């Protein structure tokens, strides 16, 4: 492992540990919801980095379609897989928060529905990739799919801002009078949220780098094996 990789991974571990400490020891207890509100910090961090991963997949796909360089397809593939892991964590955490606050694990609210659609669309990306044998056709198909699939991300973001939803909006005004679990960010809450977002973004970058290297090595090995046969 190179020195810069060691520093990068070390900083990620340190920031994740610091963010966890901030969540439990620095952020104040929310008056109405109590301790369960602390789920919010990592819920936002995972959701943000999951959507960032899909944005990376979009950029990789557009660059693949322009250059036809396999490295961009490999980056998109890696980003979608990491993004799905992060978005799954955000959904599960949201459900764990909803049970005591909304009195239900799940409801087909616009934000939850659009998030589920995003999750299914990107899961289908991975499943459909596996069904195409020819590497060039697979990469081209995947790039077009990931470019179109990204439309689900702004729709999910805007769903809680434009539609009547019970999902709270903490940053910016909520248009929905039905929002449940709404709270105002105190300065300490804002610091903790910012730290969590930075820590998860850094963790995402490490996971993406690891997954991308595996994808590159795997495809190079497969090409060598095919050439050797």
């Amino acid at each position, binding site marked *: 492992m190179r020195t810069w990789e060691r520093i990068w991974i070390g900083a990620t571990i340190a920031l994740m540990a610091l963010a*966890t400490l901030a969540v439990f020891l620095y952020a104040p207890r929310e008056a109405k919801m109590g301790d369960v509100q602390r789920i919010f910090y990592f819920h936002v961090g995972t959701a943000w980095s999951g959507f960032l991963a899909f944005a990376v997949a979009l950029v990789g796909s557009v660059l693949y379609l322009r250059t036809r360089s396999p490295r961009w397809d490999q980056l998109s593939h890696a980003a979608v897989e990491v993004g799905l892991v992060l978005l799954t964590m955000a959904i599960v955490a949201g459900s764990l928060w909803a049970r005591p606050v909304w009195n239900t694990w799940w409801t087909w609210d616009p934000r939850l529905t659009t998030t589920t659609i995003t999750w299914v669309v990107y899961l289908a990306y991975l499943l459909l990739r596996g069904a195409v044998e020819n590497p060039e056709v697979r990469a081209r198909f995947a790039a077009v799919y990931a470019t179109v699939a990204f439309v689900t991300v702004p729709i999910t973001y805007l769903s809680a801002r434009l539609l009547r939803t019970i999902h709270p909006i903490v940053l910016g005004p909520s248009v929905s009078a039905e929002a449940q679990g709404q709270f105002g960010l105190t300065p300490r809450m804002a610091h903790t949220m910012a730290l969590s977002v930075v820590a998860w973004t850094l963790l995402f970058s490490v996971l993406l780098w690891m997954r991308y290297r595996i994808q590159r090595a795997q495809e190079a090995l497969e090409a060598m094996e095919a050439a050797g046969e």
Partner: protein
Amino acid sequence: MGYLVAAYLMFWGVTFLYLLSLLRRQRALEERLARMQARLDPAHREGDDGSE
């Protein structure tokens, strides 16, 4: 408090399991590469011996 603990155990657990799966895939690739090198090495030696 139970939901909070469950959520943070899930965050750390899933992250740890995903990291583990990445490391396992990396190790599997290294083993495949080693097998391929082992397969190629005797062929190279034959080539060096002037068998071509």
